């Protein structure tokens, strides 16, 4: 069994990991095929008689104050959340891994300068930076939002990867690779990177949850994804005025946020236990 399959197997054997994987698979499936079968999430029906319908009644999770189907909007919002979470966590991890590898495999000045920059960046709260940028940048396009979330989320990974790389650099197999004529780049990519894949994978998975939560929060503050694009955070924001009379309009999107982040984190924790027994 390859290490990758072995890790997946270990995650599956843990109840929490298995629950997370199943929940995540179901959510992903919903986000994938939901939009194909559900009504248009932006279509407004009869505004007089179709608004704020309770669950059931032709709309499984009811309608909002603009008579749009809540389930459709949740599914579309979920899809966007997952895409943003995945894309920006991947970007962040790639950036963090690259910086960590460079710093770790090139000792001396390069290492010192890069790590001091990371220290400085870590000292600035992520939310503060995001609020600042988004407050200035009105109606930020989604790709830019992904980039922003990635650019503020790679510091931890870079330190993790650097620490591992420094430890590995002294290992015999790195010396052996050198003695057999491998260059610096080859050693970093071929010998060091596969050895730090485990912490990268864990950091990336947990990063997905962070980003989804952060995006929902920013959108709830009116700074992230703007209407009419359906988003989970946006739905909670839009329905706060009717929360008491039509709780389904905010409770269901809220629940989906919680469920998504929870299942991602469950998988991430199980992965960490499986791949890195030291930090368990």
């Amino acid at each position, binding site marked *: 069994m390859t290490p990758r399959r072995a890790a997946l197997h270990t995650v599956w054997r843990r109840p929490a990991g298995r629950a997370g994987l199943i929940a995540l698979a179901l959510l992903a499936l919903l986000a994938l095929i939901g939009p194909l079968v559900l009504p248009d999430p932006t279509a407004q029906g009869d505004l007089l008689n179709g608004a704020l319908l309770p669950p059931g009644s032709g709309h499984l999770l009811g309608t909002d104050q603009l008579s749009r189907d809540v389930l459709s909007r949740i599914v579309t919002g979920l899809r966007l959340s997952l895409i943003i979470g995945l894309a920006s966590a991947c970007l962040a991890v790639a950036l963090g891994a690259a910086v960590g590898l460079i710093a770790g495999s090139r000792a001396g000045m390069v290492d010192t300068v890069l790590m001091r920059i990371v220290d400085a960046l870590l000292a600035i709260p992520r939310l503060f930076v995001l609020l600042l940028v988004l407050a200035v940048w009105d109606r930020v396009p989604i790709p830019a939002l992904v980039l922003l979330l990635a650019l503020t989320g790679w510091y931890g990974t870079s330190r993790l990867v650097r620490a591992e790389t420094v430890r590995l650099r002294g290992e015999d197999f790195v010396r052996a690779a050198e*003695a*057999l004529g*491998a260059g610096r780049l080859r050693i970093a990519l071929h010998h060091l990177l596969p050895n730090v894949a485990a912490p990268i994978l864990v950091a990336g998975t947990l990063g997905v949850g962070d980003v989804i939560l952060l995006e929902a929060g920013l959108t709830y503050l009116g700074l992230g994804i703007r209407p009419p694009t359906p988003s989970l955070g946006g739905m909670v924001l839009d329905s706060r005025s009717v929360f008491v009379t039509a709780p389904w309009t905010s409770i269901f999107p809220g629940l989906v946020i919680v469920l998504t982040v929870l299942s991602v984190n469950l998988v991430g924790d199980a992965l960490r236990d499986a791949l890195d027994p030291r930090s368990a």
Partner: protein
Amino acid sequence: MTPLLEVRDLRVSFPAAGGRTIHPVDGVSFSLERGRTLALVGESGCGKSLTGLALLRLVPPPGRVDDSSVIRLEGKDLMSFDEAAMRVVRGGRIGMVFQDPMTSLNPVLTAGDQIAEAVRAHRPVTRQEARARAAALLGEVGIADPARRLDEYPHQLSGGMRQRVMIAIALAAEPEIIIADEPTTALDVTVQAQILELLDRLRLERGMAVLLITHDLGVVAGRADDMCVMYAGQIVERASTRQVFEAPAHPYTHGLFGSVPTIAGPRERLTPISGSVPPPAAWPTGCRFAPRCPERFARCDSMPSLRRAGPGHDARCWLTGDEA
């Protein structure tokens, strides 16, 4: 004819406490001929492993090989090579086998990956070709069912098999020289002999030269053509293996033989060499072995050079014949 590898006055420097410089390898000279095995013998700490690394210019920083050192591969001075040119030499012309196959293989890459990588580092071949070559190499180093072993990870292989994989990696780019640094020390006794057999067979088949670095005289006997005995960064005796075994000239070599148990002959008490190799910072200015030498006399306060003990037999001792 120029020797395949000629080393003259190889010296490695490390900065030490108090702004001083120490030389763990201090003026080592030898030459290595095609198809022959030269053994570098000595206790731990005598600088023999560092000599091996220095030949590839891989002394760990802050150490460095002194510019006055001469390392000639087929007459070309490796000291004048830049990093890119050295990378071609490393693995491509001089392969290296390390002591511990446990830690010298990358734990997350399959045996096949690692051999194929070594092939691709030096030859413009496709992935498939490299893989086929890796399988052939595994077969050549005596691993049964190479196609299956190709996809196994180091932890799935036994110690002996791992060392065979290491040798296959070292052979990947068909180097002319193999430096084997204590290749059998981490292995079971029964496996040791097999690995040494393998190195010998490969040397004969491929006409390679082997530099065998070891502390074990039993490994040298019958396998090395020539040997250099190292002590405290210097070569103290240099001759054919037969000459050294028949008539060791240096008191240190005597001492080494005295500390090895023999099966044949009368049962005798082993006579160890008292003390241990002092660290480079504490080396005496005279003969470095003098403090441990049973035969030291007044002259040992000054450093002897290599002196002729017989034809092709040199020893760094005042008790030995004439100036070499």
